[in-house]
């Protein structure tokens, strides 16, 4: 019994649900006569759906080849959106009047389910973060059912609405997963050590301020390259912070903790500045239909530079 419950409320179950949604999107695209590239675009989303459904079962090289096919389709400019016209805005206005604030209910299901699942996982002593993801998946499905009941719309209509957003965002949606792969390759090739040793070669070891500066700069730079501060952290700490700053000065546990967490968030400034962190910077721009793909990064740039400088000053003052 517990085995069945665990299988249903697992990440794999949520991946399978998402895969099913993607397959439906693909079929709708292939049947859409007004889509300029219906076969290639349909194939692209079908392959992503297959990876979601079978990614835990297929040999990794098969998934890798499927990814290369998807990238080739996108590279050839074959992944586009439908030219079908949007519903008249008058319809949404009439529906807003008819349904009133009840229209918030289905959408609120998503965060409520996310919190609820996280809470259940917490009580069972499981990984809370995983619980939130499982909740997000089932919340999405619950919101869909609630929305159909409330509006009286068919599943077909709801899927068309979802497909429209998905196609508008386009191939940007796979960038975060693709960049994660690039990060793994960079790590395997030892790119991080190269950056760390490059920083060390430039900076004189006896100047604490310059060392702190190099530590924060290396962290932000490597995060900009990798798009992920979690990948940069072990590299920079192993290459710079611990051997060149903390060990020589014999830092106490509190100072070490302070320097370590500041190093991590110095990396977050890098995340705010880089298109490589596509899930935070590029996907949202597509999701909100920003005209400038880099609009989010441009807005974040002054914030990121200011808070990064504060990291350098704060770390230097507290270590000194």
């Amino acid at each position, binding site marked *: 019994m517990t085995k069945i419950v665990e299988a249903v409320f697992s990440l794999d179950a949520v991946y399978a649900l998402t895969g099913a*949604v*993607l397959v439906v999107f693909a079929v709708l695209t292939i049947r859409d006569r007004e889509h300029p590239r219906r076969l290639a675009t349909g194939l692209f989303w079908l392959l*992503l759906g297959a990876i*979601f459904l079978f*990614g835990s079962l297929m*040999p*990794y*090289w098969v998934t890798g*080849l499927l*990814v*290369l096919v*998807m990238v080739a389709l996108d*590279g050839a400019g074959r992944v586009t959106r439908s030219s079908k016209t949007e519903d008249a805005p008058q319809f949404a*206005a009439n529906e*807003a009047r008819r349904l009133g*604030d009840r229209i918030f209910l*289905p*959408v609120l299901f*998503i965060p409520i389910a*996310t919190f609820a699942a*996280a809470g259940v996982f*917490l009580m069972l002593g499981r990984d*809370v*973060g995983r619980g*939130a993801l499982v909740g997000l998946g089932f919340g*999405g499905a619950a*919101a869909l059912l609630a*929305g159909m009941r409330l*509006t009286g719309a068919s599943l077909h209509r709801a899927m068309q609405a*979802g497909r429209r*957003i*998905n196609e508008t965002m386009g191939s940007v949606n*796979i960038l975060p*997963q*693709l*960049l*994660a*792969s*690039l990060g*793994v390759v*960079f790590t395997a090739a*030892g*790119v991080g050590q*190269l950056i760390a040793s490059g920083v060390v070669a430039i900076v004189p070891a006896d100047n604490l301020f310059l060392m702190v500066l190099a530590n924060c700069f290396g962290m932000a730079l490597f995060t900009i390259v990798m798009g992920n501060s979690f990948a940069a*952290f*072990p590299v920079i*700490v192993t290459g710079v912070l611990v051997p060149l700053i903390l060990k020589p000065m014999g830092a106490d546990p509190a100072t070490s903790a302070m320097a370590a967490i500041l190093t991590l*968030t110095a990396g*977050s400034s890098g995340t705010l500045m880089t298109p490589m962190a596509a*899930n*935070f910077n*590029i996907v949202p*721009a597509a*999701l909100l239909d920003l*005209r400038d793909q880099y609009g*989010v990064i*441009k*807005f974040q740039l002054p914030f990121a530079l200011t808070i990064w400088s*504060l990291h350098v000053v*704060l770390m230097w003052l507290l270590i000194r």
Partner: protein
Amino acid sequence: MTLQDWLKLGGIAIVVVGLALRLRTTIVVVAAAFATGLAAGLPLFSGDGRTGLIDMLGKAFADNRLVTLFIITLPAIGLAEKHGLQIRAGEFIRKLRAATAGRLQITYQLFRIVHGVIGIRLNGHPSFVRPLVYPMSIGAAAKQMRAKNPESLPSEVSESIKAAAAAGENYGNFYGQNLSPVQAGVLLVYGTMLGLGVEIRLWDLVIYTTPIVAFSVLIAAVQFLRLDRRIRSRCAKS
């Protein structure tokens, strides 16, 4: 540095040049992975106990499916939007006299920091920003500018509101998540430092991150209130 080291950095060069030329990002990323991977002497497919480039690509892509999970919420959000979600969100905010686009972002950032404290890590762009925060902010801006409806806002205003709403989510998420000792970032720091033989206490990490969280709120508030000022001055002009 050896020649091989320089070749390994070729992947970074491809990314920088490719993005600067605005080539297709997917192609640029894969090209960079191949350039760096082949320079490091990785085989294409696994064998002889070595992991191949294509296997690595497939494994990382499959392991990271969780970042793309939001697709499952798109049918529900798309349906609600077709039936007036964004219109209602805008109307709701127009009733709140104190609401402005900038103040909404500040409130939302604080709300996301609370998520971090509770230990919930999620990317709020699809579940909160697109369906709720963004239309509310547009509604508030329309009120600030006394525009008849959100569609009649000048596009430069709606574009900067989009960027601000996406940024507020990131600010709250990135810095707030370290306020909980069960979050991945704090645990990564803790584990890495212990692995390097540096003694630290888990709670110290949470305590020492609070000044940065406070700064993140202050700096962002300055930015968001300036957005309000820009909206007001735009209004005075027209």
